[in-house]
């Protein structure tokens, strides 16, 4: 098997949430494999800084995915800027944690909107173009929590579980057009979000992970790169768990 199978030269990728820890790692990895990338998020300064770091073959388009109209505009913009979107990585996501008894409708709706409805809308818009080209890859970033649940994250767990259903339904709808839809489900990944933990807390967490350490954004990015590559041409509707063995499902 040739290593070229994993290269992405000539391919284009739109990465949402590229201003965040995991999204930036995904963008760096895909770009490093030769892809042209479109970086999206709401914080334009962070996106521009990443684009400056990557240099050529990088584009920026800010979008607030809480706005239902933003998804289509982002896809149309990315198609225009790069000529096509071969790979869509639905990575943007947020949490609004709280026990259900105290969770507001607003906190529920916001998480469902950004974490589930936005990937649906982005996929719908991107598929119109991918169907015509008879090629495309959509990679959704879920979470271990979408399979196991987690107290205090009813909204987030529901959204991420929903994303699995969306992935599988969509994979069946468009398989005949040579478009694959898969989901990467990270476990506990070290990002700015988890930086607030004390050494003790981190050690306790690592103790629950068979591979003995927290995950890095690059661990997730490598899984995305595989699913985006020609090597994964016969993989669709699947959930790839990247969690150090924390949940073997």
């Amino acid at each position, binding site marked *: 098997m040739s290593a070229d199978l994993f290269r992405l030269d000539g391919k284009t990728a739109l990465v949402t949430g590229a201003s965040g820890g995991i999204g930036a790692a995904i963008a760096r990895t895909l770009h490093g494999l030769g892809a042209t990338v479109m970086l999206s998020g709401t914080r334009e300064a962070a996106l521009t800084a990443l684009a400056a770091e990557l240099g050529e073959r990088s584009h920026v388009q800010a979008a607030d995915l809480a706005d239902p109209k933003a998804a289509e505009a982002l896809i149309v913009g990315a198609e225009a800027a790069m000529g096509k979107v071969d790979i869509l990585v639905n990575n943007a996501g947020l949490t609004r944690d709280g026990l259900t008894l105290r969770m507001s409708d607003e906190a529920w709706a916001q998480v469902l909107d950004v974490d589930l409805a936005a990937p649906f809308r982005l996929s719908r818009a991107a598929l*119109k173009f991918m*169907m*015509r080209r008879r090629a495309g890859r959509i990679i959704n970033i879920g979470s271990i929590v979408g399979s196991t649940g987690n107290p205090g994250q009813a909204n987030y767990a529901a959204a991420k579980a929903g994303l699995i259903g969306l992935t599988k339904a969509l994979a069946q*709808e*468009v398989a*005949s*057009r040579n478009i694959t839809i898969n989901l990467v489900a990270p476990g506990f990944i070290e990002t700015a979000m988890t930086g607030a933990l004390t050494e003790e807390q981190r050690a306790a967490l690592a103790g629950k992970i068979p591979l003995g350490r927290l995950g890095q954004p690059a661990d997730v990015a490598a899984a995305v790169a595989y699913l985006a590559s020609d090597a994964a041409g016969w993989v669709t509707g699947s959930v790839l768990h990247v969690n150090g063995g924390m949940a073997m499902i």
Partner: protein
Amino acid sequence: MSEVADKVKKIVVEHLGVDEAKVTPEASFIDDLGADSLDTVELVMAFEEAFGVEIPEDAAEKITTVKDAIDYIEKQKAE
């Protein structure tokens, strides 16, 4: 042939890659022209774009032949 009919035919030929002669008014997209359900969705979207009309889902379901499409679009245009 009307302008609408002409354009519909062209879109069908282009999209399904079928011989123009096969695209008769009575031809069924699925039974005669080899379309699958995704093709019919794509065709409806192509019609919407080309004619600037909106074809709601319940109407789209009833468009199974070339003539169905022409009739529907002409009716929309007349309104």
